[in-house]
């Protein structure tokens, strides 16, 4: 069997020099995108089952926030927010759409037609996101972006029921790299501009921001633990966060700092997951990091071979 890689997905056309720019055009191992699909699907299922369904009646019941009037805030003239729930009957629409959302998440998990199931999951996500905005935080916007990436990213080429590789075929599978680069860009602007808004804030300049976050009784899920430590440690954490966020777009690209930068990102999100009510934001953000892990090298006899080392996720 030849080790010539299998190319899956549509290779996009880019005009002029862009078509020769490796960062944009180089393919990535299909395992990266498949890992993203699985991570997003697991997080989505967890999100739906543990934070939506237990309060479904409050969030979407017609008597409560599912009624037409409370949800009207985002559907005003001059804006293009939409929701399938506005066209479905309030009596059973939310249940049916939630069923479709769960089914599409399960389909993503097993890799069944990820373009279709990703788009269905995205349409459901945007519908619920707009219909009751009070449930959301930034993680839900990130979720919407992730689902678009999963749908567009040829994420079912391996590790799923729609995989392109026949059983026993060990050839590497490559997929177009632009969705991975797009996701990197999303993370880069997310961190950089968050860093910018922090940088101009007196609370972050003095370093007391993290002190007050750590001592927050409402937003903190474990304030008894996070208040441990001297003030200067909170200040260092504040300034470290600033440097990391502002530096992410460059540090995550440089080979020498990439692993540490990405590792710090996962650590930061995991820390906030367990100490703050950021919930979905932390888990969806961690899911995005799946594209940076060299899954394709694991289990290969010769991980140093060129076929096993195509362009990486960023």
């Amino acid at each position: 069997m030849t080790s010539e890689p299998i190319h899956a997905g549509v290779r996009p056309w880019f005009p002029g020099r862009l078509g020769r720019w490796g960062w944009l055009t180089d393919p990535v191992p299909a395992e990266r995108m498949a890992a993203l699909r699985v991570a997003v699907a697991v997080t989505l299922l967890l999100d739906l089952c543990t934070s939506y369904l237990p309060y479904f009646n409050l969030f979407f019941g017609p008597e409560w926030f599912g009624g037409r009037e409370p949800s009207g805030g985002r559907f005003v003239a001059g804006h293009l927010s939409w929701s399938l729930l506005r066209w479905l009957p309030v009596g059973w629409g939310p249940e049916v759409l939630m069923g479709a959302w769960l089914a599409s998440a399960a389909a993503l998990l097993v890799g069944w037609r990820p373009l279709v199931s990703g788009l269905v999951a995205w349409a459901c996500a945007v519908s619920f996101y707009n219909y009751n905005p009070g449930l959301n935080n930034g993680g839900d916007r990130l979720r919407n972006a992730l689902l678009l990436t999963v749908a567009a990213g040829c994420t079912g080429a391996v590790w799923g029921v729609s995989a392109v590789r026949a059983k026993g075929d060990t050839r590497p599978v490559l997929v177009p790299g632009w969705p991975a680069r797009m996701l990197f860009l999303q993370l880069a602007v997310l961190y950089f501009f968050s860093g910018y808004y922090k940088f101009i804030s007196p609370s972050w300049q003095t370093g007391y921001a993290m002190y007050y976050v750590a001592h927050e009784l409402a937003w903190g899920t474990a304030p008894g633990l996070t208040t441990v430590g001297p003030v200067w440690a909170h200040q260092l954490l504040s300034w470290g966060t600033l440097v990391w966020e502002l530096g992410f777009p460059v540090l995550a690209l440089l080979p020498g700092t990439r692993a540490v930068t990405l590792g710090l990102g996962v650590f930061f999100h995991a820390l906030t997951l367990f100490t703050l009510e950021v919930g979905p934001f932390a888990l969806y953000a961690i899911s995005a990091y799946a594209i940076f892990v060299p899954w394709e090298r694991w289990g290969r006899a010769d991980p140093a071979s060129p076929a096993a080392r195509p362009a990486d996720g960023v």
Partner: protein
Amino acid sequence: MNAPPTPARRWIAVGVGLFALWQMAFLVASNVLNLVPLRTNGAEDDMPYKPFQEEGTFTSFEPFQRVADVAGAALDAYGEVTGQEQQWSLFAPGFPPHSLFTAVDMTFADGSKVQVLSGFEPTDYNSPLIRAPFVNTRRYNVEMQFTPPVLQHTADAMREAAPVVRAQTFFYFRQCQPVLVTWLRWQIAQYAKAHPGRGGPVEVVYNARYIPTPLPGEPKVWDKPVRVRPLVRWFPTKATPADELPLQVYDEAAKRWVTLLEAGGER
């Protein structure tokens, strides 16, 4: 891609390529344009969409400003359609020196009163229980969605910037009336379920509870008095006159409840 591309596939490749370029341009440009003063459509409802958008003009050269305004509007529109609005802050600008919870005071027909505190408010501020991560966040978000506009209102700010505080408070609680009424109805229903036979309240007051945080350098003890601030009042058993909004807003400076009129203005 191993097989020669068909014409249809070539068109698909062009479409995918253009989509990819547009998405990447959108991500960068949308965030950058948040920092550029733009003339928005001036609608009051823009606030929850674009909390970080610089408003105004960045140049007196009208064609440049116009291009930026149009570009900003187009990017916003795409962000709304796809659910990818680009407004990232992650804990900026920062937290005030207090924690903020809400509470609902209910007054019943017999004159008796009860106070329903948030289920998230610790009973002992010095030994708060650890809450499970993730699973409560959406329930938390629903309850806390009314607090961001008043979160930064420290006692000093309320004294020194009273007109700004008043404007922010009145603006927000005019906008969120249907949602907040729904939340108050839910609170009443939950209380009725736990206390069957009690009947419904005739008056409901929604309060902010500011719990001072020990300042850096102070002993880590939560012993300062809680500052309670009435925000809105509702009479659930009374029909609201057609020209009024159901929730009255408390004017902290004037120490009185103010009725908001449906068409704008106050009484």
